[in-house]
């Protein structure tokens, strides 16, 4: 191939643009930065801004940033500002792991707030355990985890179901149709649900799992018609929630006779499917946007002021918000020279704060959170109406379905 000087220059320019656009960053060394130097406390914020779960995770990123901005505006933590280092893990477990390493080992963050899916939490877990750092996980999840390096501020199965399942049996009947996405979260929730059904005299007419991202529910809906359950107990996640609700409505099924009872449908999913499709169905969660409390009104107003009046808050973004305040509270207890992940972990044990959902507390034994279960029905406006509120907060029992196992401060203990 003959090459003129001009083509070469053109090529070289392309190469220059290519190489100059940031690659040298990987050589930057910041190994010796102190953890809380110069009145700055560095934390990581690890929610996907691109990729398949970006829509929901972006709202988690926003709630976390809002809380950090509020804390800093009010003078920070004993004069030190919280500096959020935001990374985009692109909805990919391998990238989650890479970014977690960067935040923990490279940037020396004292804590990282992050993850929506269990898969991404599992991917970063080795990083936090090996480096003895602290991960704050805001999502409801399946339980059965007992890590000393994670603070879990979302609900575990007992906190979503203990009240919900008996209430559904009493109100609608005992025949349950279990439908979920095919991964560990729905399976574990259903394991627990079946235990409760056994206890309260309910029965399972069908248990079915659809692939993640599944959007064709006609055969499922036919099966619902033929089995005639009283309750459709749904742990379908993501875009599938939207498809399931729309197709249920299109098939002419009636929420008054055969309602869907979901653990995963929040204001966020309802906004995606439209209130009409969601109206009449039920969700159990510790938080709903319509919940009346001074703290929640303040949270919703601040969130909409900061990010747009059309934005909704939901039970995962609320946990993002209050866990940042719990972090602040824990760090406040420490001398500046002591600020490090293990001391923060010890300081957060038993910490309490008034969250938008009510007063919450970190259980010292297992670092999960005492929450306020609520049952609500969706309205065509896209908002929920809260029907049942727990009279007291509920202890987190991550191994509720497994009576032989208990998560303690020393790790998982087997009782034989």
């Amino acid at each position: 191939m003959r090459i003129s000087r001009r083509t070469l220059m053109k090529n070289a320019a392309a190469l220059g643009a290519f190489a100059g656009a940031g690659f040298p960053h990987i050589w930057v060394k910041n190994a010796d930065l102190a953890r809380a130097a110069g009145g700055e406390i560095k934390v990581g914020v690890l929610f996907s801004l691109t990729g398949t779960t970006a829509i929901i995770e972006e709202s988690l990123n926003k709630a976390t940033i809002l809380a950090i901005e509020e804390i800093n505006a009010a003078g920070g933590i004993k004069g030190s500002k919280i500096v959020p280092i935001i990374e985009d893990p692109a909805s990919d477990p391998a990238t989650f792991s890479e970014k977690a390493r960067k935040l923990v080992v490279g940037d020396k963050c004292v804590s990282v707030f992050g993850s929506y899916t269990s898969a991404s939490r599992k991917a970063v877990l080795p990083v936090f355990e090996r480096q003895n750092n602290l991960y704050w996980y805001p999502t409801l999840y399946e339980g059965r985890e007992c890590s000393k390096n994670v603070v879990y501020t979302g609900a575990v199965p007992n906190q979503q179901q203990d009240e919900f399942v008996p209430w559904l049996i009493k109100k609608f009947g005992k025949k349950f149709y279990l439908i979920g996405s095919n991964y560990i979260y729905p399976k574990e929730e259903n394991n627990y649900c079946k235990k409760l059904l056994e206890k309260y005299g309910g029965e399972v007419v069908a248990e079915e799992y659809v692939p993640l991202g599944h959007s064709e529910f006609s055969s499922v809906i036919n099966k619902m018609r033929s089995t005639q359950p009283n309750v459709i107990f749904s742990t379908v996640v993501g875009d599938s929630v939207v498809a399931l609700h729309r197709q249920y409505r299109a098939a002419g099924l009636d929420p008054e006779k055969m309602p869907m009872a979901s653990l995963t449908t929040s204001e966020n999913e309802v906004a995606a499917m439209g209130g009409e499709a969601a109206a009449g169905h039920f969700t159990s969660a510790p938080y709903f946007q319509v919940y009346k409390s001074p703290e929640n009104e303040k949270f919703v107003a601040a969130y909409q002021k900061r990010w747009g009046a059309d934005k909704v808050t939901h039970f995962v973004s609320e946990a993002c918000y209050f866990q940042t305040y719990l972090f602040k509270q824990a760090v406040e207890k420490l001398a500046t020279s002591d600020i490090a992940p293990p001391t923060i972990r010890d300081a957060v044990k038993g910490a309490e704060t008034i969250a938008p959902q009510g007063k919450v507390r970190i259980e010292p034994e297992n670092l999960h959170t005492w929450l306020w279960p609520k049952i609500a029905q969706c309205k065509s406006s896209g908002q929920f109406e809260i029907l049942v509120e727990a009279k007291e907060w509920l202890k987190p029992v991550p191994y509720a379905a497994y009576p032989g196992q208990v998560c303690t401060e020393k790790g998982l203990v087997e009782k034989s």
Partner: protein
Amino acid sequence: MTSKTSFPTGLPRLGAQIAPILIVCAIVFALPLVLNNDFLLNKVARYLVLGILTVSLALSWGFGGILNLGQAMSFGIGSYAMAMALKLKTIPVHTGSGGLPDFMVWNNVARLPWFWQPFKSLSFALAAGIIVPALVAAALGWFIFRSRVTGVYVSIITLATMVVLNLVIIDQQSFTGGFNGITDLAQLEIFGFAFDAYGRATFYLVASCVALSLLVAFAFTRTKAGLVVQAIRDHEGRVRYFGYDVAAYQIFVFALSAAIAGLAGMLYTIVMEFASPTFLGVQLSLSVVVWCAVGGRQSLVGAFLGAVLVAGMQGALSESAAFLETWTLVMGALFVLVVLFLPKGLAGLTKSAWRWIVRRRLASQGIARGVGQTREGSA
């Protein structure tokens, strides 16, 4: 090319071809001198592993003319083989008695399934991580190339096969860990020597595998079989008329490429400390094709550097505050630039730049001499 000085088969001289490989390997081995930080070592090790994967694709695509869009399938098989062995080495803290992997307990599996049993032996796993992908590729290749499937159909079949395997892994979560993959792994230990994901030992292990795969791939391209494979790429029909068994050569290069990808997959599990179905996902598999194209698919070193540079840049861009919102756009724009202006990738650019410099120098020497002569003349 009948002059006695040229290589008998008409190949470029060995030295000129092997030099870039040796230089790149030397640089890779010297990197820990510069990267005195565990985190950077680990990160660069990850990019090097992706580099090996891309070399494996360059072998089948650039030299064999087989565009395997499912290259990540072999990578994923290797990765799972390693993860299965390391999972069985963990102390069952999350499981209690029986030593079953935690996700199996969650899915109410009572006994270790038969295909997990042999992975109790680490040597079996190490061999399986390379041999299984090669066998799978050979079997798939047998169907493809014996039936004389060519071109875009090969790509479609390989891509589809990978997607099927990916779905099976996600669906059979009681045996595979499903969507979450296989997590909570033990460290790899060979003869009592532990390979920590952040340690130098792991980095040098990866670096040695970089050297090994580049040299093996290079050696193959110089053998007679390697030459036949390249001839098939250029004109399949003509080679067949010469009496060569075209399919056999294609199957061989396809399987060799899969074996190298399997090796990369095993290393990836060590470096990342988990295995995930995304390791044999469409996104990764297509990224490999892009890296290969950017680096130059007909150059092993080019493909390797393409992966390391692009993956490294992707990481750096998405980490810089300025590009946090737009890094995917910037990456896209850069790819368009490369495809438009560098059809042979970075390797092609380097080659033409080298020729241009050589010609310039020759020319300027000529001119200088000419000028000198005129000066002398005028003096």
